């Protein structure tokens, strides 16, 4: 028996810029906040009418009874239209969709490696479950989450920016490799979400150091429910649907 699904006209509670690139959107829903696990996502109709035509997928960022938050970067047409929505507007949202990150890691220590639009689900995870490290890589200071959005995170938060405008200069994988090199890799479990090149680099490192982990493999989506076969991911047991079989896949299952 599948978990119950909803498609609601949700009331927008807030939609505000949190930094140079990101908006935080909150809407009211009695249903879409129930039994949510970090890594699951929502499929949002960013506009009424037919422009844009398809929905856009966004990870759960935070939930509280009756309230759901997403955090999104304005990347193109859909997200820029979404950023124009105001408190009181109605938004069609379906979910909860997809699988989730592993929550209990037993003895293993959690390292989260986040980049770009992959930050929200991992922050959500770090707020809910004991986490050793949250590594965040962004292009520049502009994409960095404000401290206020990270204060609930109980973990060592380390940042890299490609231009060095904040934290360590360079790729987030620098930090990851340092940690894996200096400590006992086998004690860690990596969970990552972000641009594909970043995740690929993370997985390469994980394999190099013999660390297990999982990645939220985001693909552009049409249906979001496993019906269109538009979001396939190559795994060792063949093609899987990012929206329905994923978005979270084990490193060892992913065929890169």
């Amino acid at each position, binding site marked *: 028996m*599948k978990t*119950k*699904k909803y*498609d609601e006209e949700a009331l927008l509670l807030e939609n505000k810029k949190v930094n140079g690139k990101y908006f935080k959107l909150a809407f009211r829903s009695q249903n879409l906040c129930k039994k949510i696990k970090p890594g699951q996502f929502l499929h949002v*109709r960013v506009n009424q009418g*037919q*422009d*844009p*035509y*398809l*929905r856009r997928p966004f990870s759960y960022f935070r939930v509280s009874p009756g309230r759901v938050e997403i955090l999104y970067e304005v990347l193109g047409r859909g997200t820029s239209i979404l950023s124009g929505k105001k408190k009181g507007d109605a938004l*069609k949202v*379906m979910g909860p969709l997809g699988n989730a990150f592993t929550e209990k890691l037993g003895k293993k220590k959690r390292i989260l490696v986040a980049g770009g639009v992959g930050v929200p689900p991992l922050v959500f995870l770090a707020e809910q479950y004991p986490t050793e490290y949250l590594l965040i890589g962004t292009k520049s200071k502009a994409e960095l989450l404000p401290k206020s959005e990270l204060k609930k995170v109980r973990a060592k938060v380390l940042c890299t920016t490609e231009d060095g405008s904040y934290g360590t200069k360079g790729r987030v994988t620098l930090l990851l490799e340092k940690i894996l090199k200096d400590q006992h890799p086998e004690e860690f479990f990596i969970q990552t979400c972000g641009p594909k090149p970043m995740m690929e680099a993370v997985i390469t490192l994980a394999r190099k150091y013999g660390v297990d982990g999982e990645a939220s493999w985001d*693909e*552009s989506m*049409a*249906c*979001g*429910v*496993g*019906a*269109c*076969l*538009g*979001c*396939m*991911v190559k795994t060792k047991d*063949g*093609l899987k649907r990012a929206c*329905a079989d994923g978005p979270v896949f084990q490193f060892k299952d992913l065929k890169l």
Partner: protein
Amino acid sequence: MKVDLTTRIKSLTLKNPITVASGTFGTTDEYAGYVDARKLGAIITKTITVKARAGNPMPRICETSSGMLNAIGLQNKGLEDFIEHKIPYFKKLGVPLIVSIAGESAEEFGKLAKTFDGMKDVVKALEVNLSCPNVEAAGVGGMKKQERIADAVKAVRGQTNLLAFAKISPELGDVLEIAGKVLAQGMDGISLINTLRGMAVDLRTRSSRIAKDFGGLSGPAIKPVALRYVYQVKKEFQVPVIASGGISNAQDALEFLIVGADLLAIGTANFVEPQATLQILKGIEDFCKKEKIRGLDDLRGSYEPAGEKGEGCNR
């Protein structure tokens, strides 16, 4: 007032004209969380091929104005898996099933037809997908295409008396000509218009936004073209027609009914509104009540032609 939505297609009687377009409603229960599929008049499956197909590389889809391009590549697990794992689900569900089939050769078309002929308790009709590798393989030119279409259709007819619809798209050639031929070869009806071939370019990479140069354009963008072909085929041949092409709301659905469509296959709209099928069904019912239309047959085909006013050219 009760509206009778019963839709009769030759031997087949459906409780309403709403179905789902092949490949847009999953393989079994993907939409179960949103739609009670038993309320649909019929279900058309994703196209089934004899052997499993991995389909095309990623990316396979991209959005366009009021529509999308797709190059899925008929990904499916093949005939055996379908019979073993999907048929039982639909048998249990109890909704009239229309199986979409495609072969890489006439023989395969025949084999598929023969197989489903033996499952008449579940399978009520076949949709013969002629926009498929066999017919559309690169370098298959006009004449050759026509031949392969004929062979496929004959192969199917030779193996089953199941109600059979030929699914054709304008990309195959002159729609009326092809429709005429496949009907002459024993098809019971036509399914229109599948997708139009289109393209979208990524300015960064200067290559296609999907992994193939072309994809099938679907969604509201193609609706006027679909409506026109459904009308033309219906007018020319008065045979059962399954309409698909941008049907996204009750207004669209009613337009297709008015020009004569028998079945309305909702496709891309499912991706945008998971409950599109049932919303459209309700919209049709509400319209009929408002307009005091007791049965769909009073609406279907009630189009008033424009007649030969004006100076001909439509541009």
